[in-house]
């Protein structure tokens, strides 16, 4: 498949901007919830396309350290699940090391799905 320019990320971004500037202000009250959901969905899609797999190498290294293995994140995550299931992270110190990495993984996902919550987490990390 040959993709023409502008690409998906650019299209979603400009569609969201136009929607926010031109449509959202004139949406009737009974359609506002749907309109806000559309903006939310486009925003998430745009951030996902922008983020790509940029966060994965660092997370893969952290997961790899926990497991004593190397590999790409999509390969390591199912292995981490299996290791958790088999009890390899039951000891309290292993659990806290595990939770630290799980939080990093979850923060990377929040950056895409909910940047507001991400900023709360970064402001009050001990919450």
């Amino acid at each position, binding site marked *: 498949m040959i993709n023409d320019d502008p690409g998906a990320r650019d299209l979603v971004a400009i569609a969201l901007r136009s929607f926010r500037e031109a449509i959202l202000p004139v949406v009737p009250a*009974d359609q506002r919830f*749907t309109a806000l*959901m*559309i903006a*939310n*969905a486009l925003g*998430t899609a745009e951030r996902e396309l922008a983020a790509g797999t940029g966060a994965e190498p660092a997370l893969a290294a952290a*997961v790899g350290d926990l497991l004593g293995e190397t590999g790409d994140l999509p390969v390591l*995550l*199912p292995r*981490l*699940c*299996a290791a*958790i*299931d088999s*009890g390899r*992270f*039951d000891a*309290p110190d292993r*659990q*806290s090391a*595990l*939770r630290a990495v*799980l*939080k990093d*993984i*979850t*923060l990377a*996902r*929040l950056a*895409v*799905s*909910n940047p507001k*919550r991400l900023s709360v*987490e970064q402001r009050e990390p001990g*919450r």
Partner: protein
Amino acid sequence: MSGGGKAALDPDRKAALESWLTGQAGARSVTVIDEGRLSGGAISLNLAVTLEIDGGPLSGSHPCVLRTGSASGVSASLGKAEEAAVLRAVFAAGATVPEPLFIGADPAMLGAPFYIMRRATGVAAGFRIVKSEEPRRELARELGRQLGLIHRVRPGVAGLEFLARPEPTAALQAVGDFRRWAGRYAASDPVLAYGLRWLERNAPPPGDLVLCHRDYRTGNYMVDGDRLTAIIDWEFAGWSDPMEDLGWFCAACWRFGRNDREAGGIADRADLYAGYEETAGRRVDPAAVAYWEAAACMRWAVIAIQQADRHISGTEPSLELALTGRMLPEIEMDLLRHLDAVEAAP
């Protein structure tokens, strides 16, 4: 709740409903005034109706809600006839719930089983309930008292034979359900895998079995001014550990941004717990509540997965359901923060 204004019942169904209600009410005639869809509920459909009943014991005008199921539900939810039976039991126990008036178990009439209950006044929306300068201590206390009343309904009560008892314990049944609902995600999402493992290893021993609401939280009760008018949304009710409902009420995911008010974003836990102990006839066990708060995060996570699946599978294409799937990271972060706190406790 107020009506959306648009008629939601087609004329044939409305006529069938009126004729059925006339028989049920022992009336000369019943007219259903259709006031349109009410907001709320990704699983149920709520219509505002006023019943004009001529003759019989209920003769008069009754503002009501007609509640029926949507095209697809989540695994844990009760059918509408069963939900109405639960409502009957807790109404009889003296809890502040809408009185169910008519139960239509036959799906032929409206396309799905339904029931009609009295309509409560006030608002339910969580973000509005938590908006107050001062904590709503009396409201929290009253919600505690109400939960205590609900928990007085025990297995063996007439009319609730269809509710299964958890096996082998309430906690282990819950984790087993979560694991099944998580499906393939538990093998690829390590937060789910860890949460499930933690819940299995830390399950409390079996205790009392009571009727739990299982969605008892801010957003599922109605308040008119400062007065609690109704506890609503009973579709997840079942026999369980009484601490489950307290954990669900206090869980981080149901505070609507008011994390400083741990009881549902409205007040301190102490107010809720004190009200509960007034009516329940048992003490609150904070360690068990903490366990059920972790279970609450996990339950919400697997419900979000199921909601998203209704969209992904093509059963019910919906932007709202699709976006619910993308709430998973924030739910999982709540779980991880909670487990940090529990594991750090002495």
